[in-house]
């Protein structure tokens, strides 16, 4: 059985700051990491590999050459091999162009897949769109907000626990399908030193635009349907009052006064 995991490298959002004058992101000294939700998808893929027999895993990412380190992490965690789509022609892709390029890659190179796993959203774009768009282009069903997966019916179907607004649902679907993960294990896994060394011997293939049969006009910025026209910093809310709470009685009284003023109490 073949499982494809689509991943993205993102900046470590916790470290990002905005230049207050230009309104642009200051990426200096900010680490690039494997997107946490993508890491959940990788953990799930590896979990399935451990629980069921004969499963091949492939990680695919679209990004600059630097994104190799995110794929290397996937290999260190135990993924079998990786593909990086890196080409200047992919630059400026919106979610549609990304999904389109990924779909074409999967169709040309890994068409015998059974399951695609993705993370719910990338912590830089926050759109959560590439997963559903990819499954639509590949004509496969999607299950979003998954937190647990079992293979059933001789690995021909999946039974998925997914989060819905009022609780959880258990859903079944025939493979091939795409599943998007919104949660991972409470404690992320750690690789051994041997696995880190072995990962460097695994296949990490860089694919250029010329290897895909897509018209140039469907790639990157040219192939995107949406365009960013402006970036600006969010409105900073005016800071309110901060009081010392080391004396609970006094603090509680002040709080209730405040709530009364605001007509909440």
């Amino acid at each position: 059985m073949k499982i494809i995991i689509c991943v993205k490298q993102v900046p470590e959002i916790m470290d990002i700051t905005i230049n207050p004058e230009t309104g642009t992101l200051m990426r200096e000294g900010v680490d690039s990491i494997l997107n946490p939700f993508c890491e959940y998808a990788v953990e799930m893929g590896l979990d399935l590999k451990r629980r069921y027999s004969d499963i091949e895993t492939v990680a695919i990412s679209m990004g600059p050459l630097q994104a190799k380190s995110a794929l290397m992490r996937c290999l260190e965690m135990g993924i079998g091999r990786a593909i990086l789509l890196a080409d200047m022609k992919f630059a400026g892709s919106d979610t549609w162009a990304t999904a389109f390029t990924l779909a074409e890659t999967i169709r040309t190179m890994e068409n015998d897949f059974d399951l695609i796993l993705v993370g719910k959203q990338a912590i830089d774009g926050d759109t959560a769109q590439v997963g559903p768009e990819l499954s639509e282009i590949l004509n496969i069903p999607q299950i979003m907000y998954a937190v647990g997966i079992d293979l059933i019916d001789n690995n021909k179907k999946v039974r998925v626990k997914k989060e819905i607004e009022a609780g959880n649902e258990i859903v079944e679907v025939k493979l091939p399908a795409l599943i998007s993960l919104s949660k991972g294990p409470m404690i992320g896994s750690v690789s051994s030193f041997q696995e880190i060394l072995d990962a460097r011997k695994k296949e990490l293939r860089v694919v250029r635009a010329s290897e895909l049969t897509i018209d140039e006009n469907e790639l990157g910025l040219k192939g995107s349907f949406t365009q960013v026209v402006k970036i600006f910093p969010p409105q900073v809310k005016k800071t309110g009052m901060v009081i010392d709470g080391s004396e609970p009685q006094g603090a509680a009284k002040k709080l209730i006064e405040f709530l009364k003023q605001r007509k909440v109490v």
Partner: protein
Amino acid sequence: MLSWSSGKIMHEITSEAVPSVDFKGIRCINNYSEICQDYSSYLCDESKLAHQGAKYLFFPTNEDELSAIFKEMNEKNVTVTLSGARTGLVGGAVPYGGAIVSLERFNKVLGLRYDTQSKEWLVRAQCGVTIRDLNNWAMKKTFPRLSESGSAETKAFLEKYKETDTTYFYPPDPTEMGAALGGTVATNASGARTYRYGATRNWVRWIRVMLASGEVLEIPRGKYFATPAGEFTIINSTGNETIVKIPKYVMPHTKNAAGIFSAPNMDLIDLFIGSEGIFGAITEIEVALQKWSNPISIIQFLPSDDKAIDFVITLRKEKSIRPELIEFYSSHALDLLRKKQTEDPKVVGMPPIPDYAKSAVFFDLQFDPEKKDNDYAKLKKIVNRCGSTLEMSWAGYEQRDLERFKNFRHVLPETVNTIIAERKKNIPELYKLGTDLAVPDYALEEIWGFYTSILERAGLEWVGFGHIGNNHIHINIIPRSLKEMKKGLLIYQKFAKKAVDLGGTISAEHGVGKIKKEFFSIMFSKKELKEMRAVKNALDPVCMLNPGNVLEIEEK
């Protein structure tokens, strides 16, 4: 150490007078009840040692104010306890009456420069800057304030620094990075990376220290040395000379934070480093930075504590492998953490510790993630010879992995503290027993054998962990009753004596402060203690500074 300043070696130094300032203008809380009510945190430090009250709490903002305070307290015969971040573990900042002087407002970075002779980047800062901030600024290459209000020369250096390809860091890395720079210099603090980079002493290039007289000595490293007879002369601004005779004992060949530094022809700067504030208040410090080596953190699991000791000894001997640090979790330590993982997995932050892990050695190596062919054959051999494999390890090299592994290294002592706090609820007099002993390299196996045989016979609950690379393993006994605690204290006496017999020290990193004085006398004879007191009497004749630290308070 290289000699920085051009010119001849000096044996005399003159202290500078500091301009006088109106004493009444200095921020002061001048009654004990107010200090107790609103500033109670200034009465304690991390040791939780009981204080003995304080009459005044001062907040000087510069050397002028500090000098005025010293002069006034000196005149009024009031003792002064210096207070920084109060993260010390031996009661160094706990007042025994008199005045508390908080140096928290000395919190500015003053300069950055590149020394072409020593080929080092040097940062100058006031004593109240925390080493966490100092390190973060150095690594991120942004020093707040310097870019705005630094001199033109500093700004030029700052630009150059930003353009360097390498990352630089400040090597001394005690667990508590919230410590004040001045405090770490006063205690000669060390951490895990001391294995490779040495303690704070190795990194201090220049200090300004204010003596009890209120006058300041400015001491660059490499300028002022003891005479062959072992003396320094300090001349004050009015020409009065004081001769300081350095003690004649030999310091142990280990990482050491116990006792006044002494060596033949020693550098004057080293007299103040590690002196725990009894000779003067260090106000400004210049430290050197080191290139960051992009490490990988590895936790190697081994089948027994004995095999772990074996592993460390063999690893140290292998010249081609140069670990940044070598740390240790004993078998009992791992069991304690396994238990913690079942209760609160997120605190430990790692996957379940494997069953085959009976002992653990942590080490950091330089690692290039881009390199495809990595040759770790020698390491593999050593690991295999000690009954383990590289598969039986945890490793990570991304920034967040390094932090995660560092957190795991610190979670054991924190867990022990939590257990003690719980037990204290039923037995209030209970406290954790911790050793800070280190021995020379040759004695590692012997001291470990000594520790374990006595502890196993005594049937106490204990864990071993820490800087095994420096033969500095902390033994924490976690007593379940007062009886066990008494038993433990006797055992510690035995341990301390053995360590000293083997040529080691009773305090490798925490210092002596007020808590370790009884062990201190195991290490130094009465004669040697007298020699230390002679230095104290020369530099602080009225014994104003930090009463109770290192030396007993003498009746006047």
